[in-house]
């Protein structure tokens, strides 16, 4: 794809094709901070162990160990599911939509964000499966010929979720891997011994011929086009879990776009939460510049404004419906039982992000980091409000109830955080975090000064 030559402005410093390779491959080949990495990995491994215990608990005692009961049959497991799927979306937006929009700055962060997508989808997929009640029969969701003469119920949002998340995970993996193959070839040719063999196997024998590249770039563009539809469809289908039900606060047409915007909003927050420390840690500030963070912040602000519109639309349509149950839910949000939660969410997701209108805030790294964590938290609480507050409220006072997460609920959430951190740490240690081949393209026309 043609890029104007001034797109090299996305790389700071005086880099040519060789120094780009050195800087990025060195993060894998001669990494700094080995001890710090090991310590972080050990902490994440504890989280991974916690996940194993939590999953074992659910398999052993079933979901009774979670605090779910009538009427709140969906606890924070579903909150976590929606939150994790949402986080995945920024990676796909960066890698697919920004590729179609010819945005050169995506090249420095797409690999990283796509890896986040993969692990976030893996975290997300665990929750609905564990929440099935009989998680060992999760494969019943898959249509396969069986002796019971049974087929999945294709009219059910549960089956839709299965298809949406399975497709999302698979396509994200393929997209990520296809983009990675040329870089694995580079790593193969830069390494020796066992490492060269391992990278060599995963590089599939990539030689970088013009015909290889032509097919590769075409396939990559096709995959980007396909993944673009997933950016808007996956969370739409997740929102159907709620929107097709009759419960107050759920049965709204604004849900699909509102969920998609929320997904992108929280996804960019998570990208910033991880990207800010990693770019410093790996010494990649020449490639992930302050201007990249600035752009992420702008997109986050944009998504945040759509989310704010979603909140308004939810309130408006609740009131405008004239339905007493909808109205009483809104009253609860504005000045009732769920008001503290609702106003916290407004503060975190609507008020604080307005600071991003100012360039100084967008380029203030500490503020961006704090804000990104605030938004992650705010978006998690928002999903709590949607999932749990609606179920607690119900249609009649007699159907009301209360829900408190148990130790096992929190352990599962903490476990997925550990799982996510663990695999992100492995990723930054063994895989080039920036697409070298894509950055090389930006400077390929430059002839190196000295041979």
């Amino acid at each position, binding site marked *: *794809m*043609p890029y104007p030559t001034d797109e090299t402005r996305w790389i700071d410093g005086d880099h*040519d*094709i*060789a120094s780009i*390779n050195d800087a990025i491959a060195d993060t894998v080949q001669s990494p700094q901070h080995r001890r710090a990495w090991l310590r972080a990995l050990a902490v994440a491994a504890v989280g991974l162990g916690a996940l194993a215990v939590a999953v074992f608990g659910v398999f052993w005692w079933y979901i009774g160990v979670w605090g779910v009961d009538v009427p709140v049959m969906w606890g924070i497991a579903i909150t976590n599911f929606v939150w994790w799927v949402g986080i995945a979306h920024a990676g796909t937006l960066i890698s697919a939509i920004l590729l179609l929009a010819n945005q050169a700055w995506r090249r420095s962060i797409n690999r990283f964000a796509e890896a986040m997508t993969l692990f976030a989808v893996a975290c997300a997929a665990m929750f609905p499966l564990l929440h099935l009640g009989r998680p060992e029969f999760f494969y019943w969701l898959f*249509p396969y010929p069986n002796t019971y*003469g*049974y*087929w*999945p*119920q*294709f009219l059910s949002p549960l089956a*839709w979720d299965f*298809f*949406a998340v*399975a*497709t999302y995970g*698979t*396509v994200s993996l*393929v997209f990520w891997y296809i983009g990675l193959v*040329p870089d694995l*070839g*580079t790593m193969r*040719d*830069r390494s020796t011994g066992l490492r060269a063999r391992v990278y060599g*196997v995963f590089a*599939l*024998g*990539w*030689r*970088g011929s*013009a*015909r*290889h*590249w*032509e*097919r*590769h*770039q*075409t*396939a990559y563009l*096709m*995959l980007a086009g*396909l*993944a673009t*539809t*997933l950016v808007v*469809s996956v969370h739409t*289908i997740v929102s*159907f879990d709620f929107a097709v039900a009759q419960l107050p606060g759920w049965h709204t047409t604004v849900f699909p776009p509102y969920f998609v915007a929320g997904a992108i909003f929280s996804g960019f927050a998570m990208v910033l939460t991880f990207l800010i420390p990693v770019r410093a840690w790996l010494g990649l500030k020449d490639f992930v510049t302050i201007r990249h963070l600035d752009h992420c912040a702008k997109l986050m602000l944009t998504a945040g404004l759509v989310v704010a519109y979603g909140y308004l639309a939810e309130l408006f349509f609740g009131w405008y419906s004239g339905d007493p149950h909808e109205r009483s839910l809104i009253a609860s949000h504005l000045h009732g039982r769920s008001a503290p939660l609702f106003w916290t969410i407004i503060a975190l997701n609507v008020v604080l992000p307005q600071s991003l209108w100012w360039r100084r805030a967008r380029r203030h790294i500490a503020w961006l980091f704090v804000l990104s964590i605030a938004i992650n938290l705010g978006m998690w609480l928002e999903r709590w409000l949607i999932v749990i507050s609606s179920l607690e409220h119900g249609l009649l006072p007699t159907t009301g109830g209360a829900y408190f997460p148990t130790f096992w609920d929190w352990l599962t959430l903490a476990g997925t955080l550990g799982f996510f951190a663990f695999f992100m740490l492995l990723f930054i240690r063994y895989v080039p975090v920036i697409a070298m*081949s894509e950055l*090389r*393209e930006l400077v*390929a*026309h*430059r*002839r*190196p000064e000295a*041979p």
Partner: protein
Amino acid sequence: MNGLRGLLAEFAAGDEVLAAARAARLAGYVALEVYSPCPVEGVAEVLAFRTRLPRVTFVAGLLGGAAIFLFQVWVHAIEWHLNIGGRRALAAPAFIVPTFEITILSAALLTAFAMLWRNGLPRLHHPLFAVPAFARASQDRFFLFIGAGDPRFHAGHVRAFLESLAPLEVHDVPR
């Protein structure tokens, strides 16, 4: 010339290899290939190469979507019809979600597999990897290859021709 698979000229920049490929094309060579660490714009046109991969994407998506749609019709309207409050068995709008997802999934998977298959990958070993300098083809050097299969191939002439393009070096590729 039995011991030779072809000759490989090494360049330091994408523009140089593009100009060299153009010159080789004008000189009448056809068994040409360019190896580069990143896509070089215009090289595919010089080599007169076009890929038909988008057709794979389109057909795969179409077939995958049609298959899952018909499958859902079969399950709910024919094989296992459940009467739920008299609702219609063939509820096409509800079938859209899996239809859409499988369309995307089959198009994506087949595009990726077709790309690898047409590229002859995975192929872990290749005679080019026997040329030590070729390790930089995935890093910072650009190579023009003229194969021994070319009707006009003559090692001495091709070497002289490649030298005339001012490369960094010309390498023999053993068979």
